């Protein structure tokens, strides 16, 4: 019991540190998509809803399962989709229009 709790606490603290390390290197240009993407990651709580579903055996349990699943699914699906929509728009500059059409025009 306590070893399990200690293990989980260690995982928690180390993940926080990894999070600080990785996130602090993200440039301000990408802060909005990053926030939205991190938002999607906490949608992992949908796994919690699944665990609850496997234990539920009463009307209260079903209602809570339904609520948790609906909220978490909105979080995870919407979060990833909207982040992808934003990041898809970040594009590199195309080569200027009239810049040296090298091989296309044989004449």
């Amino acid at each position: 019991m306590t070893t399990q709790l200690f293990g989980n606490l260690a995982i928690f603290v180390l993940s926080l540190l990894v999070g600080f390390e990785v996130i602090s290197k993200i440039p301000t240009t990408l802060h909005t998509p990053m926030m939205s993407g991190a938002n999607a990651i906490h949608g992992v709580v949908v796994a919690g809803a699944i665990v609850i579903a496997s234990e539920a055996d009463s009307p209260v349990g079903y209602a809570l399962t339904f609520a948790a699943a609906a909220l978490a699914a909105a979080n995870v699906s919407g979060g990833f989709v909207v982040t992808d929509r934003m990041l898809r728009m970040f594009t590199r500059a195309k080569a200027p229009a009239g810049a040296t059409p090298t091989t296309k025009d044989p004449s």
Partner: protein
Amino acid sequence: MTTLTFVIGIVYLLAATLFVLGLHQMRAPSTARRGNLTSALGMAIAIIATIVVALVGSGGNLLAWLALILGAALGAFYGTLRARTVKMTDIPQLVSVFNAVGGGAAAAVAFADFVLNITAVPLGLSTSIPIVLDVLIGSVTFSGSLVAAGKLQGIIPGRPITFRGGRVLNVAIVAFALGAAVLTLLFGQSTLLLVVVLVASLTIGVLMVLPIGGADAPVIVSLLNAFTGLAVAMAGFAIDNQALIIAGALVGAAGTILTLQMAKAMNRSVMNIVLGGFGTGDSTGARSTAQDLTGVRQVTADDVGLQLAYAQHVLIVPGFGLASAQAQHEVADLAKYLIGHNIDVKYAIHPVAGRMPGHMNVLLAEANVPYEQMLQLDDANAAFDNCDVALVVGANDVCNPMARQGGNPVSGMPILDVDNAKSVVVLKRSMSPGYAGIPNPLFTDPKTGMFFADAKQGLTDILAATKEYVAG
């Protein structure tokens, strides 16, 4: 440890690795999209693994699975629909809504875990503490994020909503919630007490965000994002699920860093923002009636067009006014035209331009501006020395030179050194002060021309004028 739990442990570890890798790939615009997909893959793996354990473990109850599937389908439909249809200017609200539902889900999971296990044996503190914390934090985020989204959307007034005795009420209700939480832990059998914690926490969320000005709302959204991360991690402790613990901690870290950076860029402390009552929300121009135009050199679209047509290096400084006028396409059209005529154009973007950090970059990306043209604070400030015309569109405090002097609300705030450019054009509706409520000496600088217009119309007029001079 059975073979199954071992395999699941490994799979969760893989999912967690993918989350970290995904965030790591967000360090550059060229790999960021792949990063998001990497995280999504990790998510899919974690979800499938959890379903397998649940099915093999208990088998569960048909009605419970039905509730899960129905709920998930409904939620996924809503989330995907909103994500596909949202306007890019409304991103901050949507992030806040998704944050709210995440917090709500975490609270629901903890609450259900309490209700479902309480009858069997009294819960040990190592389970009940995370449950109570999760219900507390999750509910605060749920109601708080919804109020913040309402403020950003304009459904709830953006101005700080305060009332006599509001602070006292806040302290009282926080004390009440904590008291109920402690009692729940002491008498680990009472669902009623946990309901009291839940309701009190929902109220705290509302009361906490109402006094916060609309312009501060993004900082609160980010702070609540960190809270949701913690709530999800607590849910992980409660149901002994490492995927939740790791992902929750990662998001907690992300939200914390972003909150601190945002507060720094706005020259405020997080505490000061949370206490609220600052500013009038989105600037309404209510104070602009008594305009003092002494020392102001007014220019027309024609003047600006002439200046731009004969410039070599142009820096555009987009601000909140551009975002709220939704003029990102107009500014991109102007820049594209100038670049097409061999004029060097870049965007100088302050960390808190737009409605939340990096929001301006998203808006410009939407208008097909390549990310190489978006300069961050340090690069932009290096470029102003060599800049012929700096075109400021709807920005104010972020380029107020008074930040370099002491003794005023913007002192020490990192700013764009627009006043280092050879000449400056400010496109703005009026002389009204920005969010900090102080005058901007840049506007009365002899090398600055003020062009009073709506951002969208003003940019269109400037483009038309520029075309005349470039062609002629």
